């Protein structure tokens, strides 16, 4: 299975990772090799097999609707790159 430059560029946008032309070339080779490895899956007969999302056959436990958290804004925002008036700042978002 080969992966095209166009696919790599598209996936990089989806994943929000900037890649330059040189990196795309390297990725073309590396991702191609990884996908070759992964293509072995095609050999398996999985017609009657249920997908397995999880190793354990357990069900979700639900939490009681009780407030357990206190305001720790100062502690969390002390490690934030950019805040003002309690808000996280990002470059202007235009909708």
């Amino acid at each position: 299975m080969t992966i095209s430059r166009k696919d790599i560029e598209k996936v990089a946008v989806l994943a929000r990772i900037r890649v330059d032309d040189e990196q795309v070339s390297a990725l073309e080779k590396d991702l191609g090799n990884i996908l070759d490895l992964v293509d072995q899956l095609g050999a398996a007969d999985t017609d009657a097999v249920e997908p397995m999302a999880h190793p354990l056959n357990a069900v979700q436990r639900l939490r009681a609707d009780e407030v357990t958290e206190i305001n720790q804004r100062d502690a969390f925002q002390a490690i934030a790159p950019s805040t003002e008036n309690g808000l996280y700042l990002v470059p202007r978002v235009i909708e």
Partner: protein
Amino acid sequence: MQWDIVIGLEIHVQLATRTKIFSGSSTAYGAEPNTQANAVDLAMPGTLPVPNEQAFRYAVMFGLAVNAEIERRSVFERKNYFYPDLPKGYQTTQLERPIVGPGYVDLDLANGETKRVRIHHAHLEEDAGKSLHEDFHGMTGVDLNRAGTPLIEVVTEPDMTNAEEAVAFAKKLHGIVTSLGICDGDMSQGSMRFDVNISLKPKGSDTLGTRTETKNLNSFRFMEQAIAHEVERQMDILEDGGTIVQETRLYNGDRDESRSMRTKEEANDYRYFPCPDLLPVEIDDSFIEQARDSLPELPDARKARFMEQYGLNDYDAGLLSGDSKLAGFFEDAASHGKDAKLVANWIQGEFSARLNAEEKSVADSPITGAQLGDLVVRIADNTISSAGAKKVFEALWSGEKDNVDAIIDAKGLKQVSDTGALEAMVDEVLAGMPDQVAQYQQESDPKKQKKMLGGFMGPLMKASKGQGNPKLFNEILVKKLGG
């Protein structure tokens, strides 16, 4: 060309849980920015979600209320996209196995017909935070207090054919979720948000046209306007031979304009997959039965009861039963006011007009149902005239006094209903208006005669200093003037 309009709705309903869907942070509205965003809500590294049982209970209650199937084993998926108000870079939602399966809601239309709107499904998901675009030196500020608030997203089939049906559905849904107590229904705070999918097709055609989605409408009025606006926009394009672009649009209610959103964005690819941090949620019979037992009276049942118990007609009962707070107000008033029909008229008249004028909800009303009931008692027993009643209502509304009888006394609004006194006044007024009396008596058309009676009422009310009972004046006049 004639067109059929096809409308489907997606409604985000914020659930009135105390805590978020995946964390123990409070969901209270209006807190200082980011003071209700804990490590899980902020997607701090290594943190994990644990679902809130109440959110499931509410979703199941909703499902039961809309006659839907409940999914016994529902699954959460991750919907991947980047946005500053989405801390994890994915929204935890349900795609393949939503908690609420197909159901329906029946609408009573103004023309007396019943319209069934099918619900495709409703799923649980987390709300995003809020981006504030005010100026922070050209930056956007992000508040994540709302991030993780539980929502159910209700998705209808495209069963509605005009704005009236869509709004009727929206109101009905509002009535259902507020009656259930699973949502506070406060649209100004974003507790319910509507996305409208609209397409047009040539009249009678079976092929659906390309649809647009108008997002985040937060009032019934905007919804109605946005539909009208979008239908007209699409019609103009189609009739000019153009084609509709499938897109998301944003409607500006203040300007009655809409524009395309995210035009530059690459085609979305949300890469849904089952969330590996969560296990399948199993809902068993006892959970469902407990939810069923906890269902309060819903609008349809309430409407039937209002007709039965209070003798309201279909129209009045429909209007008063939809919203649980309004219904409660009516019942408080009716239990005091005896005359339920008159109570209904007052609620739909003066009371609703004042709420609308001041953009208040029933919950914010300065007067109570009991006070309105007391007022109606005094109208019904002829203690006050309708003009006097309006003055009492004003006094109650403004908070001058809170007791109806005390207001009537203080303002001297008590009507004179002593027939002898009133007859004397009529005699005196008629004696002073011989021409009008003669005109009346020469008139053969009873309709015109009835109109002419009004000419005597002014002077009579003046003579009685506004306190004569107009109904009695009327009866005495007819008798004295002869047939």
